[in-house]
């Protein structure tokens, strides 16, 4: 019987940069589209169906006593391959990733970003399998969650463990790459769901308007969450300054890239908004703010302990998306040769508007694959 490893244990290894060898047995198209990356991970691909007549295609590439983690879409094929490696190849150190890439896509790894000035802390929830980042601000027994992912039980048990009450669920914009858990979680815990009104034109539910001037307070007026209108990825995109220290940029600015303006079909209309937000509005803010985006695209963006962040002033020096002087060049960069759009992004937007309510399995399927919300300069 093959030993298995949970997504939780694998996530710990990735964020701790432990040396990890993965054999991904999905078909090569799926592998090329999306795979486990980050930290000190080495991954090789050989589809399971090429191993049915024997393990020769991989046996030469792997040492018999080397630790190998076998991964597939849902965990069934990797289980079979792990058994083949043990029984036919005499491999001694094979692990099967429980639940496969489907489970990996759902894992959230909480990483503490820092303490807040008047007590309380900020956590980043890293979705390693998809590159989504969400945040939890806690102070004085209360919490706000920003850009909540679909797996709301993870935030709930985190809050329960810390003995805090979730009060505010905030989405920086209407997401197109993942299904927001904000509204569901607000309903469940009796919290308030905040969404920028300009992104909410077509939504079917009630929400609190996330707008400049409407500051949100977490825990007895101690922590200020200050909305800054920063359109461009969507027309409503709103950033948040938390505790005068952190700038949550949503999908406008990432560590190594910038947001793409085309996911609602309005690239041409929104280019100048995007440019204004990045080259004017953010420039007026303190350079010492720590940028915390809603996504990352490259494994190397994962920093110490698995967190993703950068100083705003440093990004103005290093992020290629912020170095484009010429407006026309910028326009071209963000409207032409864009990466493919995220899987099922139209359906995901409609789900986030409340227009459709797909079943759980369907929701999981809609979210598979990378986030693809960025333009890489």
């Amino acid at each position, binding site marked *: 019987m093959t030993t298995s490893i949970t997504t939780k244990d694998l996530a710990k290894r990735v964020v701790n940069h432990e040396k990890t060898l993965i054999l991904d047995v999905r078909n090569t198209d799926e592998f090329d589209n999306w795979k486990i990356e980050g930290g000190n991970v080495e991954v090789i691909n050989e589809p*399971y169906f090429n191993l049915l007549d024997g393990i020769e295609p991989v046996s030469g590439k792997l040492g018999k006593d080397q630790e190998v983690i076998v991964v597939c879409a849902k965990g*069934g094929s990797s289980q079979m391959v792990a058994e083949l490696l043990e029984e036919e190849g005499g491999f001694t150190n094979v692990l099967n990733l429980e639940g496969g890439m489907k489970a990996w896509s759902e894992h959230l790894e909480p990483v503490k970003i820092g303490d807040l000035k008047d007590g309380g802390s900020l956590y980043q929830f890293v979705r390693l399998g998809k590159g989504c980042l969400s945040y939890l601000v806690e102070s004085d027994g209360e919490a706000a969650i920003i850009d909540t992912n679909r797996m709301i039980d993870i935030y709930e048990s985190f809050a329960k463990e810390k003995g805090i009450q979730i009060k505010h669920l905030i989405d920086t914009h209407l997401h197109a790459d993942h299904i927001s858990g904000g509204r569901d979680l607000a309903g469940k815990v009796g919290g308030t769901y905040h969404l920028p009104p300009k992104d909410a034109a077509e939504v079917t539910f009630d929400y609190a308007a996330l707008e400049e001037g409407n500051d949100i307070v977490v825990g007895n007026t101690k922590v200020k969450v200050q909305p800054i209108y920063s359109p461009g990825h969507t027309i409503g995109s709103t950033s948040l300054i938390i505790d005068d220290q952190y700038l949550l940029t949503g999908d406008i600015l990432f560590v190594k890239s910038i947001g793409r303006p085309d996911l609602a079909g309005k690239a041409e209309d929104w280019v100048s908004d995007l440019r204004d937000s990045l080259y004017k509005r953010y420039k007026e803010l303190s350079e010492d703010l720590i940028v915390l985006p809603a996504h990352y695209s490259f494994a190397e963006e994962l920093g110490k302990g698995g967190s993703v962040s950068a100083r705003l002033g440093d990004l103005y020096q290093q992020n290629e998306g912020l170095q484009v002087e010429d407006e026309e060049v910028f326009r071209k960069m963000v409207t032409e040769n864009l990466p493919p759009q995220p899987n099922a992004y139209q359906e995901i937007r409609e789900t986030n508007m409340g227009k459709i309510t797909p079943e759980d399995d369907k929701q999981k*399927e809609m979210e598979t694959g990378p986030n693809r919300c960025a333009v890489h300069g």
Partner: protein
Amino acid sequence: MSITANEVLDAKGLACPMPIVKTKKAITNLEAGQVIEVQATDKGSTADMKAWAESTGNQYLGTIEDGDVLKHYLRKASDIEEKAETKYEDVLNLDELRNKVDGEESISVLDVRESAEYAFGHIPGAVNIPLGELEERFEELNKDEEIHVICRTGSRSDLAAQKLSEKGFKHVKNVVPGMSSWEGQTEGNQ
């Protein structure tokens, strides 16, 4: 459109890797060139069938969604077909056929591939009589018409053209190489 297969494999309710494992087993019992229909409910099976067929040299024909059931059609690889020399002399290449198809006059195209192959893409207006059924069904065709016989690679159509000629058809052309290289219009389930 009804699609007939030589074998139907029920892999409904089975999760990956079982649909492929079962298909691999079932296809060994087929004769070269025969078609299997695999019924599966695992959504990932479509991409895997395609990739598996490619890596084993079998032909992935296509998939039809029937409610929750995915019906995958595959055709067992046939070495003879890939290498066979053609004997029938009156041949027509694809460009010439395409000019005729795109032209004003209606022409008669006989597609002798299996019905499943035909179902997933054929020349508009083409009539389908699989090679194996030609002996019983040749009378459906008009002897006085010019008949353009096509298959996937030109070898089954070569045999069909010879057969029709034996039966007294005088205006038969074998189209080479066949649908595998056809770039004109097609119709059918895509």
